[in-house]
């Protein structure tokens, strides 16, 4: 068989406009030979047509007409790279404040944030804001490329000064790991291979750091396993199988589990993935589960192992607001959490998160791209965990009931850094 076994690492690039995020990703893809010749030719042709040099690597990911015309990233571009042991899913995120919803889209599923900082300008407010949003969204690992080192003649002092800024912010935000690397994305130094330009640097290249990072969030692996039921498969002969994606921990055949919100205790009698029997199913797998007890469970219910999640109609949450009109207490929305949707109301707004000072101020509304703390009440019971414990069962979105637009992302509980 020619199939190698790889794991999957999802990463999001963050950083301020013009610090060189897209160029770094372009360089990573070119130097790991992930780009085909015709794609490189197309980048060279587009660079020439727009008069931006021989090969503007940012054109590798800035694929929309408007992005190339304006030279900015509007929405997330997804790119893929693979090494013998790992498949990388790279979300190249936009930098501008007005596209925060797109940056959050890219970071919400990331295991790791790859930040790019211009050594000459240091850590900008935009980057700090993005690091804060990444931390808020539960990204635990941070790799920082201190870019444009060629412009400061590879000054170790300049690198260390920016490194200190980054370390301070990383500490404040509570990242589990933070690796800072001097690079030139333009020239490729320390991107894939370690460079001779920085003899004083003894650490890893960007690619080496990405390969060394643990792929799943270690903070959640010791937690209870959950399977929000998406679909009930009726077996020939009358049995019922519950299908959904496992998150949190691992289920095994024979595990004692509880069906929520009903509270029925039972045991897993069989596990399948795509029709094939297994003895266990880890987070990220779509498992089909047979239970010993006969139940009338359906979509929206949850199978969980200890420690159990909470069944509630009301909770405190952190809200990232994306709506054009402000969010105010009393407003009604449709809330989607795991596989359940329910009408919901903002009961009260408990404050506005100040990203600059990592503090909470008071406010009576949230405007677009602001982050706040709120109390939410739902019409139906939800089965929830704190977001810091489980990203899948601790997250929800708010949907405008008239336009069906997604107007907010919500996380149950407060931010870790407050």
């Amino acid at each position: 068989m020619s199939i190698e076994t790889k794991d999957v690492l999802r990463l999001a690039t963050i950083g301020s406009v013009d610090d060189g995020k897209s160029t770094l990703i372009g360089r990573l893809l070119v130097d790991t030979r992930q780009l085909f010749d015709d794609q490189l030719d197309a980048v060279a042709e587009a660079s020439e047509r727009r008069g931006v040099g021989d090969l503007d690597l940012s054109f590798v990911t800035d694929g929309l007409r408007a992005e190339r015309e304006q030279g900015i990233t509007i929405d997330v571009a997804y790119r893929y790279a693979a090494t013998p042991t790992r498949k990388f899913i790279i979300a190249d995120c936009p930098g501008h404040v007005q596209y925060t919803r797109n940056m959050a889209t890219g970071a919400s599923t990331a295991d790791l944030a790859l930040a790019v900082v211009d050594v000459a300008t240091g850590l900008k407010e935009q980057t700090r804001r993005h690091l804060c949003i990444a931390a808020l969204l539960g990204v635990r690992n941070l790799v920082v490329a201190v870019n444009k080192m060629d412009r400061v003649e590879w000054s170790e002092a300049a690198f260390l000064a920016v490194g200190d800024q980054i370390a301070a912010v990383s500490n404040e935000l509570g990242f589990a790991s933070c690796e800072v690397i001097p690079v030139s994305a333009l020239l490729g130094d320390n991107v894939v291979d370690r460079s001779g330009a920085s003899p004083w640097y003894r650490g890893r290249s960007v690619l080496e750091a990405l390969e060394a990072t643990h792929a799943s969030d270690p903070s959640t692996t010791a937690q209870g396993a959950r399977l929000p039921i998406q679909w009930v498969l009726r077996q020939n002969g009358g049995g019922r199988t519950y299908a959904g994606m496992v998150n949190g921990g691992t289920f095994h055949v024979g595990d004692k589990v509880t069906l929520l919100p009903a509270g029925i205790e039972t045991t897993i009698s069989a596990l399948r993935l795509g029709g094939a029997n297994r003895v266990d199913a880890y987070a990220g797998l779509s498992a089909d589960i047979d239970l010993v007890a006969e139940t009338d469970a359906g979509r929206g219910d949850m199978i969980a192992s200890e420690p159990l999640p909470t069944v509630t109609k009301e909770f405190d949450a952190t809200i990232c607001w994306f709506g054009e009109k402000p969010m105010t207490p009393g407003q009604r929305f449709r809330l989607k959490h795991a596989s359940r949707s329910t009408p919901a109301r903002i009961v009260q707004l408990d404050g506005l998160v100040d990203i600059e000072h990592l503090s909470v101020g008071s406010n009576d509304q949230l405007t677009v791209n602001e982050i706040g703390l709120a109390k939410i009440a739902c019409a139906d019971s939800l089965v929830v965990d704190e977001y810091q414990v489980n990203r899948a069962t601790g997250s929800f979105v708010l949907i405008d009931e008239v336009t069906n637009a997604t107007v907010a992302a919500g996380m149950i509980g407060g931010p870790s850094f407050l």
Partner: protein
Amino acid sequence: MASLSTTQTNHLDILESHALFILREVAAECERPVLLFSGGKDSAVLLHLAAKAFAPQQLPFPIMHVDTGQNFDEVLAYRDWAAEHYGARLIIASVQRSIDQGRVADPGPMGSRNRLQSVTLLDAITDNKFDAAFGGARRDEDKARAKERILSFRDSFGQWDPKAQRPELWNLYQGRVNPGEHLRAFPLSDWTELDIWQYIEREEMKLPTIYFAHEREVVFRDGMWLAVGRFVEPQPSESVEAKTVRFRTVGDANCTGAVLSNAATLAEIVTEVSVANVSERGATRADDKFSETAMEDRKREGYF
């Protein structure tokens, strides 16, 4: 294969699981989904996954082929086999009918019908009141696709607005639309061409025979090897040659190029794809060579 557990992460299991999740989520949230099926390798994988997602029950939605009338015979044969094999109800939306009804202009026997498909597709979505259409598109195919959400909103004119996409956080796929609007859903978004072939090999799937190396009469035109047949007649200046070729993508017979290849088995194709220097679309598709943003422009109009 033994039904052993493996706690080791495997990228094909992760990709398969994510696709099953999206298929089930959209089927649960939307009233009338449809799966777009061209008979190509990506839609073949998509149909295979859909059958897995709902087994042992029947597919809870039909499959639809937008038939340009310029398909390879082998692909049409595969389409009919697959519909029967997976027990799917097949709807055929015909570009020829759109031409006959005057909905689109006839580009002539040698002209490309690629862009016309958007009209046929949108008409069929409206006529059947579909509110979601699964597609096999992958983000690694094209730079505009690389930007698209997994659940991608289409307004009542079928248009994609790349500057105002819905936020799509976590695995919270939000499929609500108003009447007349619809979604495109792309369960294979994060798969690469190599992932597709590795999965086809692992699952021992059947595919149209033209994906495997075979001898065929071809002419060299516009930098591509085109198969001589009903849709490609050699020009006086062109010489017909017999070559061992296979197709890396499957589109209309008059604009899909063959690649010179001896890869006749799935294992050989996996090896060939893993060392390829040219992208599948760059190698084989005239329809993507119009302009820098050909795909974005077509997608805005409602293309797949």
